């Protein structure tokens, strides 16, 4: 055991058991998987992705490039860092051999997102963040403080002094004051993305006992203060990937946070002062420590502290490599390759500001040769960076910089020695690892540069350096330094890669939040939905709507149900929920003018009480939508749109009205959900409507095709319209939506003597296709004009202009080889052609012509027809109307199916059925 009494903020009164690679280890609340393993002198059974070399724990937090584990219990999750997974009882993890694997079982945990607004968001609750938050809160600002560790304090170990008190006392007091000031303070919360206008995404790990495992906070802040600290920089040397090579500050963190001594025989290799604190603290905790300082001079204070503890300090000394099998047993030192035995080799090459969140929003970085790292330079408005994240490392300076006028004080650092910027030591570049996570070495960078790449973005892509889970937190700067060295340029000219969100990996489940399962996408239902469900309907998605597709009876498949429903409509009566049609109330003295401009046909001439089918096109002349238009009054129309296009049509109408013709006195109101529509169709529909509305004369003479009448039922207003999308006698019954279920029941009841049959969208599609009525978006695709659909009759020649008109005069729109809507009847009378099938030129030998096979068009709709007692299709065919009667071929699987081109209207072409 390497647990040291008197150290660590863990709860030693309780134990937790964690199973790693099949072995149970005990730890304590407050531990991580990494600290538990190191307390037992163990490591996860990891191996590297490319070379299969052993991998241990390289750091104590998110910068660790190697210590990955696969969590198995209680939740399966791949590739988390052992250093960031809190040790909880019953946790089961496994080492990662190269790469993790996705869970094969569904994640049953809850995830959510929460919006928070504040004046000031402070990222990081180390000394800089705490005093920045305190200053803002004391000034009366609303403050959110997030920090990714389990407790506030950042890198403070308790050995420091702030305002004359032990630092952790200051932390506790400040946390209490922030709570009293109403600061929203979230620990275990990583700000992982920073976006425009003060928008920050932060992932809160709420734990397995919480109702919701993880929460993404969507924080909108007036000002963002980045106090995310700094990341210790390693130095590359031969075999620096060997387990037991750890960042110096991480070993210190493990000691003070978890009471774990990561090694007994410690070599500290440094080019910076901070590692002396690690050397002294590990020596105090009982380790045998030796410091090798790359610099010619050791810092006075550090040397003194080492001398007091009997820690030898050698200056001007470089580690060139390591020895050991699956963990380090010695450091290889100096040009004479002297071996210094050790079980822990700590490395510190200085510190890199963690200014990633400033870079996310375009903050620029500038290379500071004093610290050997890039620090924030130009910042976007509303963003400040303080403390170590800003390149300010000494505690006294950090507090002064972040704390405002009431900043606390800390003793100044004694006689610091400048950092020596050292990317690597002499040795074999093929064994000096730059990105240990990617098995990428100095030799790989040399190859990239040798291949002509000089920009870090290119080298990154060539070598994969910085693309692992840690996104190059420790390796990125080393790579830049080595590129600079190899290309002979100053590092500031080499530049950097761009830090992008997320700062640390985020599970997709967390990003999805509660938008999973039933809440993935809104399911829109009509007022009649419960009836459809009770009637056993199968539903289909139309946009976000769920529409009854057909109502299968016992033993029926869709084909059988649809044939039965079609037959019922053609022979007796059926009823369909048409409520999802978009409905727009067009109101105002200039309503006729507006509609004349938007529809291809004339709407101003429509008489009050009448209905007209209308086609709407874009400026390109292609069909955009269609529907019926009811003239309710001289200054009022009710326009219907296709279900899927309802919002788009209203948007487009508003666009024209507001941006092009604001002078028109007309206003548009969506009434899609105000009104529900029951379509009652079939030769007996007149009987049904007559029975439910005895006061209405439903005779063909009194209630003609394409007219509407208002009536009422039990005092509730109802509108009846003679509109048919099946070619049959039909009525659309419109009522305010809350009354739709009751009205529908009345219609069904009145239809019972005629066997009224509820029918769904699939049946409706067959019925309309038999009549050659196109479905916009199925038989059209944005390249089809009304003329192509055979609807020249719907294009007014009387109007000077309307949207799309000018395009019809373009040469291409007069091309006789344009695809036109026609019917296709497979000559075998049996094959239902798959929708989307290509149509190829007739070939006599029954085989495909040589490639490229000339395409004539494609099948847009295809069904079995009850009325025709055979399958049929609609298709867009080049010059189709000139080819009526011709036989073309449709490849279906390996077969070529012959089909005869015909008029698009197959049932009742003379229109005799619409009046019953």
């Amino acid at each position, binding site marked *: 055991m390497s647990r040291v009494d008197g150290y660590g903020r863990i709860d030693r009164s309780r134990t937790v058991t964690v199973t790693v690679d099949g072995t149970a280890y005990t730890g304590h609340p407050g531990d991580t998987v990494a600290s538990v393993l190191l307390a037992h002198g163990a490591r996860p059974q990891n191996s590297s992705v490319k070379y299969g070399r052993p991998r241990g724990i390289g750091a104590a937090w998110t910068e660790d490039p190697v210590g990955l584990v696969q969590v198995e219990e209680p939740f399966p999750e791949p590739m988390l860092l052992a250093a960031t997974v809190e040790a909880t009882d019953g946790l089961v993890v496994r080492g990662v051999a190269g790469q993790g694997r996705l869970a094969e079982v569904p994640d049953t945990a809850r995830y959510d997102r929460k919006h928070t607004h504040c004046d000031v968001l402070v990222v990081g609750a180390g000394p800089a963040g705490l005093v920045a938050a305190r200053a803002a809160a004391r000034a009366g600002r609303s403050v959110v403080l997030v920090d990714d560790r389990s407790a506030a304090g950042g890198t403070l170990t308790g050995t420091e002094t702030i305002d004359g008190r032990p630092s952790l006392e200051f932390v506790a007091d400040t946390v209490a004051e922030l709570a009293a000031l109403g600061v929203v303070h979230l620990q275990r919360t990583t700000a992982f993305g920073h*976006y*425009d*206008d003060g*928008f920050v995404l932060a992932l809160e790990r709420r734990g397995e006992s919480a109702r919701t495992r993880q929460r993404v906070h*969507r924080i*909108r802040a007036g000002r963002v203060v980045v106090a995310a600290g700094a990341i210790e920089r390693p130095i590359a040397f031969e075999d620096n990937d060997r387990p037991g090579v750890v960042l110096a500050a991480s070993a210190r963190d493990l000691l003070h946070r978890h009471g774990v001594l990561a090694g007994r025989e410690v070599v500290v290799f440094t080019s910076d002062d901070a590692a002396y604190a690690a050397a002294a603290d590990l020596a105090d905790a009982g380790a045998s420590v030796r410091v090798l300082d790359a610099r010619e001079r050791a810092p006075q204070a550090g040397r003194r502290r080492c001398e007091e503890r009997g820690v030898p300090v050698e200056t001007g000394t470089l580690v060139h490599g390591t020895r050991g099998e699956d963990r380090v047993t010695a450091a290889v030192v100096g040009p004479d390759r002297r071996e210094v035995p050790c079980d822990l080799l700590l490395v510190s090459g200085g510190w890199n500001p963690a200014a990633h969140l400033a870079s996310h929003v*375009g903050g620029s970085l500038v290379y500071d040769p004093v610290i050997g790292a890039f620090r924030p330079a130009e910042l976007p408005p509303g963003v400040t960076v303080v403390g170590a994240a800003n390149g300010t490392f000494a505690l006294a300076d950090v507090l002064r910089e972040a704390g405002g006028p009431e900043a606390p004080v800390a003793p100044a650092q004694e006689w610091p020695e400048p950092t020596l910027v050292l990317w690597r030591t002499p040795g074999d570049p093929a064994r000096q690892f730059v990105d240990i996570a990617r098995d990428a070495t100095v030799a790989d960078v040399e190859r990239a540069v040798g291949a002509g790449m000089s920009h870090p973005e290119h080298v990154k892509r060539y070598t994969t350096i910085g693309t692992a889970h840690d996104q190059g937190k420790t390796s990125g700067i080393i790579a830049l330094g080595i590129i600079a060295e190899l290309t002979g340029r100053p590092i500031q000219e080499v530049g950097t890669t761009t830090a992008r969100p997320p700062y640390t990996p985020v599970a997709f489940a967390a990003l999805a939040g509660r938008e999973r399962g039933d809440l993935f996408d809104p399911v829109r239902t009509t007022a009649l939905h419960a009836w459809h469900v009770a009637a056993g309907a199968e539903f289909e998605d139309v946009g976000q709507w769920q529409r009854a597709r057909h109502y299968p009876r016992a033993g029926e498949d869709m084909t059988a149900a649809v044939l039965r429903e079609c037959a019922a409509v053609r022979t007796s009566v059926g009823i369909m929920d048409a409520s999802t049609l978009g409905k727009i109330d067009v109101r105002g003295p200039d309503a006729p003018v507006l509609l004349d401009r938007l529809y291809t046909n004339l709407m101003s001439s429509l008489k009050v009480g009448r209905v007209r089918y209308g086609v709407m096109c874009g*400026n*390109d002349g292609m069909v955009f939508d269609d529907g019926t238009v009811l003239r309710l009054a001289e200054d009022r129309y009710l326009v219907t749109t296709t279900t899927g296009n309802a919002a788009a049509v209203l*948007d487009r109408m*508003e*666009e024209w009205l*507001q*941006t*092009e013709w*604001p*002078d028109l006195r007309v206003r548009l109101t969506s009434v899609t959900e105000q009104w529900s529509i029951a379509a009652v169709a079939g030769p007996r529909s007149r009987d049904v409507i007559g029975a439910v509305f005895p006061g209405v004369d439903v005779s063909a003479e009194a209630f003609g095709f394409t007219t509407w009448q208002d009536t009422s039922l039990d005092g509730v207003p109802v509108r009846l319209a003679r509109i048919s999308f099946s070619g049959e006698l039909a009525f659309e019954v419109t009522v305010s939506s809350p009354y739709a279920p009751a009205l529908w029941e009345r219609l069904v009841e009145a239809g019972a003597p005629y066997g009224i049959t509820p029918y769904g969208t699939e049946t409706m599609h067959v019925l309309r296709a038999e009549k050659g009525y196109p479905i916009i978006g199925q038989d059209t695709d944005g390249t089809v004009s009304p003329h192509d659909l055979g609807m020249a009759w719907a294009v007014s020649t009387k109007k*000077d*202009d309307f949207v799309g*008109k*000018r*395009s019809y*005069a*373009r*040469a291409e729109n007069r091309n006789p080889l344009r695809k036109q809507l026609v019917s296709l009847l497979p000559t075998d009378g049996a094959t239902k052609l798959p929708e989307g099938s290509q149509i190829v030129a007739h070939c006599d030998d029954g085989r495909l012509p040589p490639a490229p096979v000339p395409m004539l068009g494609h099948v847009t709709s295809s069904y079995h027809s009850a009325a025709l007692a055979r399958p049929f299709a609609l298709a867009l065919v080049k010059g189709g109307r000139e080819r009526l009667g011709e036989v073309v071929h449709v490849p279906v699987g390996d077969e070529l199916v012959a089909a005869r081109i015909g008029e698009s209207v197959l049932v009742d072409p003379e229109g005799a059925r619409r009046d019953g």
Partner: protein
Amino acid sequence: MQLITCPWCGPREEIEFSYGGQAGVAYPEHPASLTDEQWAHFVFFRDNPKGPFAERWSHNAGCRRWFTAVRDTRTYRFLSSPTSNPELTS
């Protein structure tokens, strides 16, 4: 998630808005008098500057009003306070 300032509703998240392309492209007074090329230019061609660009936006999830704003296409920053149609503003 950028904020866009609707002249009526104030700043809202960008997902509440829809983009309407270049502003100030008027529907031709007499389309019939245009050549095919002129008409095609109106239908299909829009400016695509690097820098300030006057655009139309609609606050779809809010007041449903269209407005014009100048945005820098390099930075996404809105450079002017958006202006709504004067006819519709009190």
